[in-house]
Structures are given as C-alpha cells and as structure tokens.
C-alpha cells in the first residue's frame, strides 16, 4: 500500500471509542429520577396552561416550504449582482431565464391554490 493507513485506522478507532464512550457514560453515570413535574415543559417558572404540542396547521408548513424555495434564489442573485457589469448581456439573459423559471414555479403554486389562506 502506497498510503500509510495507520492515521486513518487510528482516526476510525478513536471515533468509535469516543462514540461508544459517550453513549455508555451517559447510560451508566446519568441519574434517572423521573417525576411528572420534571417531565413538563419549562415556561419561565409559570405553571403551564396548555400543551405546546398543539400541532401547527398544515398551511404553515406549506408556506414555510414555499418560503425556503423562493427565498434561496437570492443565493444566485447576489453573486450575479456583484459581477453584472462584467457579465453583460449574457448574464442578463441567464438571470432572465432563471427568474422566468422561478416565475413558472410561482404560477404553478398560484394555480394549485397553494397561496390561498383559506
């Protein structure tokens, strides 16, 4: 073998030891005294008046997902803006195509009714 694999093996063993050790330590050393009071959620010391496990309405997830998708386009916009003089017409056409496809996505969401609140 042309590569010295000892560091790799050492690394692997070390990772194994740390992982197993951490799990074992928390299993062995951690005290486990459960009482119902301890299992309730902590709300600034005030007695809780409703459970936080109330599920969000599904439309929040939909809005969140759409937000992520349309928000992230900025990742491509910002580098383009810093260079847009150098890129000239070519860059403009590229960005136009990109935005047009995003627009199609928006049209799709709209027609599917994903943007309606009720």
């Amino acid at each position, binding site marked *: *073998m*042309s*590569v*010295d*694999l000892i*560091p*790799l093996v050492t690394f692997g063993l070390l990772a194994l030891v740390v992982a197993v050790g951490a799990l074992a330590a928390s299993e062995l050393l951690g005290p486990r005294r459960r009482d119902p009071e301890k299992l309730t959620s902590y709300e600034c010391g005030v007695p809780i008046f409703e459970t936080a496990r109330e599920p969000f309405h599904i439309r929040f997830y939909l809005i969140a997902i759409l937000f992520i998708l349309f928000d992230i386009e900025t990742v491509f916009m910002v580098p383009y803006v810093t260079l847009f003089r*150098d*890129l*000239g017409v*070519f*860059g403009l056409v590229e960005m136009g195509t990109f935005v047009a*496809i995003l627009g*199609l996505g928006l*049209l*799709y969401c709209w*027609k*599917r009714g994903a943007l309606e609140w009720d």
Partner: protein
Amino acid sequence: MPINLVSADYAAILPAVILIATGLAVLIADLFVTDDGYDNPSSEKSHLVWIGVCGAALAFAALFVPSGLLFGAWSENGVASGSEVVFLGALRLDAFGGFAAAIIIVAAGLTTLSSGGYLAAQGQNRGEFYGLVYLGGGAMVLLAQATNLISIFVAIETLSLTVYVLAGFFRKWKLGAEGAAKYFILGAFSSGFLLLGMAFVYGATGEISLAALGKSTADPYLMNVGLLLILVGFGFKVGAVPFHSWVPDAYQGAPATAAGWMAVAVKVCSFAALIRVVVAAGQGGVADAAIGKMLAALAVVTMVLGNLAALNQTNIKRMLAYSGIAHSGYLLIPVVLAFQGTPDPKVGAGALFYLVAYLLMTIGAFTVVAMVSNGDTDREELESYNGLAKRQPFVAFAMTVSLLSLAGMPGTVGFLGKLTIFKDAVYSGPYLYLAFVGILASLVSVYYYLRPIVAMYFREEGETIEIVENNWGVKLTLVLTSFGTIALFFCGKSVHELSVRSIQSITG
C-alpha cells in the same frame, strides 16, 4: 471575465434543456387543460403523455444534430469522436455522455408511455409525475456529461430530489410514505459523505475538475480519503450492497412504473458519473491500489448478497429490487476494470452496453407489474401471476422475455450484456475471479427469475384479476421492450460498437 458560449456549448446542453422544458411544459399544461385537468386524477391525460413522448423524441434527436453528443461516434466509422470541454469545464461534450443520455431519454419516454393508464387506474394520475420524470431526466443527462465536482453534485442532488418525490407519489399508500422517507434519509445522508469527499478532493488539489483526481502534486492522504468518500456516496446511489437497504423499501412503496424509472435511469447516470470518476482517478496514479480492491470487494458482495436476498422474496417488486441490486454488482465489474486502467481502453464499454440491456428488460418487467397490480398492493405478490398466460398471453410473454433476459438467457440481450462484462473481466487478468463470482451468481438468479414464469404458465389461477389492458401506451411499451430485448440479441453488434466508441471518448 465575460463568458462567450459557442455552438458546442449549446449542442452539449440541448438534450437536457429539451427534457427540462418538456417537464415544465407538462406541469403547465396540466394546470391549464381544465376539462380533463388536474382535478381529475382518474383520467388518462393522454395529452400529457403525448407532450412527454414528443419531448423525449426531440431530446433523442438532439443527440444527433451536427456537433451533438452522439453525432461524431455515430457517423465516423470506428473512430472515437472528438470531445470538447464546454461551459468552462462544467460539462464535456462527448459520445460517452451522449450514449448514457440516449438510454436515459428512452427510459423517460417508455416510463411516460406506460404510466398513463396505470396511474389513472389508481386514481393518482397527476401531471407532476411526468413533470418529475422529465425534470429529473434533464438532471440525469447533465450528470452523465458532468466533469467537475460542482456540476456532478448539483446534478446528482437534483435528480435525487425528483426520485424521492416519485418514490412517495402514491400519497394514499402507507408504504409509499415509508419508502420515500427511508430513501430520502439515506440518500441525503450519502450525499453528505459524497460532498465531504468532494471537499477533501478540492482541499487536496485546489481544483474541482475531475482531472484533479489524477493530479500527482496532490496530497495523497487527503485525496484518497476524499475519493473513498465519493465512492461511498456513489455506492448509495447505485444501491451497492453495504449501502443498499433503502432499495427494496423505496421500490415497493413507489408506483411500479416509477420504480422502473428509478431502477434504470438513476443507475445509468450514476454509473456514467462513477466511470468518469474512476477513469480520472485511475489515470493519475495518486489513487491507492487498495481502492481498486475495495471496489472489487464491493462488486463481489453486491452480486452475491443481492441474488441471495432475492431468492426468498414473495413480493415481485421486492424481488426486482434485489435483482436490481445484483445487477449493480455486475455493473461494478467494468468500473473496477476502468479504475485499474488496463491497457485496453475498451473495458468500460461493457457497462454501457449492459445498461442498454438493463433498460429494456427492467422497464418491461416493471410495466407488467404495473399492469397486473392495477394499483392494488396485494396484487404485487407472486400468487397474482398464477395462470396469467391463459388470460393474457401477450403480457405473460413480455414478462417471460424480460425475466429471461434479466437472468441472462441466450436469445435475449441480457445474455450478450453479461457476456461482454464477464469477457472483459476474464481478459483483464487480476480480476478474473469477478467473472467467476458473476457467473455463479447469475446461475443462482435463474431460480428466482423462473418462479414468476412457472406461476404464469403452469399454475391455476385462484381468482380472476383485472389488469390495465385497454391502454395503448402500456401495450406499446411492452411491444417495444420485448421486441428490443430479443432483437438486440441478434443485432446488438452495432450498439456494442457504438458503446466501445463512446467509452473511447473518455479513456482515449
């Protein structure tokens, strides 16, 4: 720095652009055709199928335009076509990418044809299915052409995202949600390792082109760890054995036609990218020989365990899933040989030719599964095939052809594919044993491929089962796949020559 694109750049991305445009067109068309539109998922929506098939045909034609991907290899007799680096090194215009793209495009067309009736019978015929197939298909074609780490990563992630969604496309099935979740978690997990490997390669060389994998000035330690992580990532994508646990669940939960698409297209583009990676790494000499041995071990384990696990499956989709794993094992043999950099630059050609065979027989088998199951999970068990030959002689015949070809019987293209791969391994010298293991494994596989055939021809049926039959698309798909499977056995030589010329465009 202004960027100037020349005609080669446009020729290189033309097929992918057509596929993506088709995907968008299907999505938009499904929104606006209202009378038969998206609020009625039980209709057959043949307009969407037509848009899809026309798009696939256009994309296929785009491979052969002058200076297109396959133009050179197709027209110049016996000469490897010239290849060009396009898009500043992100992609490469060569026959290798073109050959893989051709398989992917045909797979997209056949999947579209066979899906309309099946999805409608299940009441799940939504335009998104075709949209995802074509958007993913565009990413797959780009992956087959990609030659730098960024384009490989972006393409592999884009196509993965589409197939995760396809795996859970039957939203009413519990199994669909489960399969999609498992596929997603394991797929994204493997992407993390793939990406870490790419970061290491970039760290070792300061470059992101695939040629950097062979850079002799690189730090060999970082480089080899990076390469290993990249191979692990690809191992997940193709379903090689230690990383295969998602395959049966994802295939079982997915619509049958989508399972065929996942099996074929994802394998084609992943193996294309994998071969590019190992060829680049093998030529450099920085990569450790131990990596070649590990790849060989991966091939052996995948062939053996894939076939053994398939033996006692009673669900036909799971059986085909394990058989797909086993086929990944066979396909890893040319990858090992390509890594080794044997004097013969043709060794990878076996993989390309085998993928053509795999396309025909797998799409054929999954189409029959779709017809018989008719959208009902219970009818994916082996008993549902009892006595099928009496009621539906043609469907039973098509299934028989596909299964015999998967088993590698003479008379079908699967035999030629296996022959090519094993012959290369025998001539390679040090990897002779891969051919032995492969032959033994295929002998074992004959048993489980024969079980559905026996059920179809020699068992009495318990209850009469309706199948999706009055659908031209499904029938046409079966005609094309079974005809192709048999015809390519007799005239597979030209396809094989094309595959050899294609592989020479990257191995030189």
